[in-house]
């Protein structure tokens, strides 16, 4: 198939050509990470597919299918649905605030019959889409510095405020940083960036002092000096560092991680699965996984370069930023570089919601790649 063939009208919309355009190396890389997750979950459960490993693989397979399907959806559809998705997400967040399901002292879920909906996850994608949609129609100059910038500010801060109120500090920070990243990528003036950073530096201590819940504050003080309370709130960080450090260069061996197998490590199958991996496979295993993550980020970011539309660029880059932030925040937390916030390691950790969010995001990235030459605003070409 030559490039000239693809340039014929309608040729690119043929399904076979779309499938061929999917980045299969990317698919292999994320599958390797998810597979590593299953391997670790098998080990943690005492060499058993139950209760985690089999489910993890099943979910990944399902989410992978979703990702492929989404990647075939025309970027014009994504573009058209950007604001509606954001709006639905926002309304659901408000609904959570009003009638949401209480769990673990936080209000994060909506129960609709058998389906549990976590609106903040929808919002992660919705925010990226809405910002990309908005900047697509904004001139470079306006994106730099103009009153128009109040729109993205509201788009970001309104859902972040709702999520933070749930309270779900991890997701709120993630959304705030993702949104900020998109705004910066869209061309925000460096002066405003500097001002924003300085402003944050001024506001954050005040927020910590007055705006945080008791347990959130404690997590912060614990992070500053985990050794002060090794069996209390410093337990998570300390045990995680012990798991990592005792892994050494080559690890203790598969299935032989005493920290996770004997339950010293908390949340070993979700937020702290990286520590489990570090304990059993050591520095070598960790470095391998980090390289895989780096490859995923690189490939996703490259996709944003390829896109001919500003919407596609920003959407792909926004999803990449979210993913990268997931990895960095979870990694820092597990290694004792950041306070404990409930952010899992994407693809590696057990948990359906985050897996679905990430894979939907990757579906968007793949859609950007597949439809990189497409005009998002014109009516030409099929919607699928």
């Amino acid at each position: 198939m030559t490039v000239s063939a693809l340039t014929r009208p309608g040729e690119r919309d043929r399904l076979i050509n779309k499938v061929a355009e999917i980045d299969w190396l990317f698919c292999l890389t994320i599958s390797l990470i998810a597979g590593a997750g299953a391997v670790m979950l098998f080990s943690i459960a005492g060499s058993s597919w139950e209760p985690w490993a089999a489910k993890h693989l099943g979910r990944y397979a399902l989410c992978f299918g979703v990702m492929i399907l989404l990647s075939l959806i025309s970027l014009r559809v994504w573009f058209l649905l950007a604001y509606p998705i954001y709006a639905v997400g926002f309304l659901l967040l408000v609904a959570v605030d009003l009638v949401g399901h209480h769990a673990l002292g936080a209000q994060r879920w909506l129960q609709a019959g058998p389906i549990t909906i976590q609106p903040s996850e929808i919002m992660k994608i919705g925010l990226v889409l809405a910002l990309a949609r908005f900047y697509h129609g904004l001139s470079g100059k306006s994106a730099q510095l103009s009153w128009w910038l109040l729109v993205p500010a509201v788009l970001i801060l309104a859902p972040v405020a709702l999520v933070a109120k749930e309270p779900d500090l991890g997701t709120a920070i993630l959304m705030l940083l993702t949104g900020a990243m998109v705004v910066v990528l869209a061309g925000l003036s460096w002066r405003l960036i500097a001002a924003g950073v300085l402003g944050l530096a001024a506001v954050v201590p005040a927020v910590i002092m007055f705006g945080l819940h008791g347990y959130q504050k404690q997590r912060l003080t614990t992070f500053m000096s985990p050794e002060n309370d090794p069996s209390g709130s410093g337990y998570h960080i300390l045990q995680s560092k012990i798991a990592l450090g005792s892994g050494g260069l080559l690890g203790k061996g598969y299935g032989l991680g005493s920290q996770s197998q004997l339950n010293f490590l908390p949340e070993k199958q979700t937020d702290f699965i990286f520590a489990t991996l570090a304990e059993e496979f050591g520095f070598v295993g960790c470095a391998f996984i980090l390289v895989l993550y780096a490859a995923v980020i690189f490939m996703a970011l490259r996709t944003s370069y390829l896109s001919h539309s500003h919407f596609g660029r920003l959407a792909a880059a926004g999803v990449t930023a979210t993913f990268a932030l997931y990895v960095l925040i979870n990694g820092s937390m597990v290694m004792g570089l950041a306070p404990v916030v409930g952010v899992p390691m994407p693809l590696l950790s057990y948990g359906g919601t985050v897996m679905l969010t990430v894979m939907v995001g990757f579906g968007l990235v793949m859609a950007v790649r597949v439809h990189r030459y497409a005009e998002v605003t014109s009516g030409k070409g099929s919607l699928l």
Partner: protein
Amino acid sequence: MSEPSIFFAEVNERQGVFHRRAFLLGGFAGVGLIALGAQLGRLQLLESERYTKLSASNQFNFKMTPPPRGLIVDRNGVVLASNRPNFRLMVAKEKGLDARATLKTLAEFVPLDDGRQARLFREISNAPRKAPVQIMEDMSWEQFSAINIRAPELPGVTADMGEVRVYPYGGAFAHVIGYVAKVNKTDLTPSGPNADPILLNPGFRIGRQGVEEAFDLDLRGKPGAQKVEVDANGHEVSTDPAGDIKAIPGKEIVLTLDADIQNRAMEVFGAQSGAAVMMDCRNGDILCLYSGPSFDANKFVRGLTGPEYKALAQYDHKPLFNKALTATYPPGSTFKTLVALTCLEHGFDPATVHVCNRAWAWGGRVWHCDKVHGALDLKGAIAQSCDIYFYQAALTVGPDRIAAVARRFGLGDTFDIGIPGQKPGLVPDTAYKKRHFPKDPVWHPGETPSMGIGQGYTHLNPLQLCVQAARLANGRKALHPRLIHSVGGVEQPSGAAFGDLPFEAKHIDFVRAAMAAVTVSGTAAGLSDMGLGDIKMAGKSGTAQAFNYASGHGQHGATGEWKYRDHAWFIAFAPVEEPRYAVSVLVEHGGFGASTSGPLARELLRVALLKDPEIRAKIEKPMPAPEIPQVETDPDVVDPPTPAAAAVQTAQQQTTP
């Protein structure tokens, strides 16, 4: 905002800004990942050792294994105190323990009444975290296995096999060896060997009384540790025998006692109250140190119930009291041997004759004897134990000289035999009177005759009288008693290493000859024959007044109310020629020394002599060779003779030349 307003160039510029900034985003992500990698390297490569240690201390716990307590054995290696396996049930305070409910559940398996449950609940509540409290000891195998099956669902409950102290001979050695008991908080000292709170673990016992107390540290040993893998809740996952630290068992203590003699002492005393001490009069080894009635030390290990303790403590025969060391009595006529020796040492002519008419007037009062002895010389006076002779003999030398000689024989003295509890008693003299009776500091001449017959102020314990008998029997050495033969294989100094007695040999020989006469023709006539052929026993009886007869309470002889009767003494040694063993026997309120204590002394000496291989060789005459009938042998059939038959044949050929 309308689409056409965006110019092509502007679009390109927008793309250029994005590309540059996306490159920055990639850079940020890259830097972030590299930072993570660096932190990983720091934790996993540079600080790995530290975290490996922390991980191991998470994963492994060391469970204390109590050391086996040292054995206590007699001179022949007969075990007097050992340890036997014991199924124990323990509860330790840990996360999720509901002590009340747990005790209720356990009561389904082992007998725990409400009162005991309440007491154990208090004990568990007061115990430090993870310190096990013993619920039950000596469970049956059925109880043990039933609880072990349920243990995983009962947090804090463990059933294991420990050791418990056992005294195979129960009562015979109770006073000497003592017993062990649970360590109390009050046993812990701020410093020193008993400072370690690990002693409060149910695996430890502390010695109470006797050898168990005196040698507690030697017997205790050093605890070891068992390496166990635990999970985050502290539950055992597995054990790692390679990582165990072996417990060092306590040292073995060898006593000089002979279990056979000691057990025989308990048998012959029966229900009688008193004490028997036997020494080897060549080296001072104590072969028997019995105080009766005794108690079963095993019951003390288990813990006495209130009524049991009350019964022991209130019994008028005082079973908890070691009468061999702690109780002192007037020595009575046994003391005459030393009065006689004092006289001889100071030029008294043993041929001096006094006439006994059962009463003797001196110093304004009448002094009595128990019968009319007629004319006696010194030897006869000892043999017949004539009081009137010794009233006068004592007056010729005075109290200070008698006291000096008595002290040379260990009277009024205490000895380092390894266990506590000796009361020195008293050998009075004029200085004593001066010191202790400020209102009447003068020794009145009328006090001397009483001293001459072992009454008055003189009070001595059975060990001292045995030392006296042993020194008389030895004749030369100032023997010291030795109870502890060796501790952990290190032999203790012999009792023969303490210098000589400063008396003329012929004087001691004289006393010994008189003691030999006691058991032949004297007060204890007939006791000399031990049923061991030529091996004879010498001795001296003593009947000590427990109460003043004049007060109306004192009862001479074995009649009247028990607690007012005289104390019966007998000291003896055997064989008469070249003595080997000396004994002192006291029967509290036993009446006459010769008839009550004498036979006991003879029986104990008999057992000792029978166990002595050299003595056995002397008394066991070779059996006369049996007549072996000539076997009619058929010359045609030649049976090869069996080795035994061949030996018989050669013997016959040699004896019938």
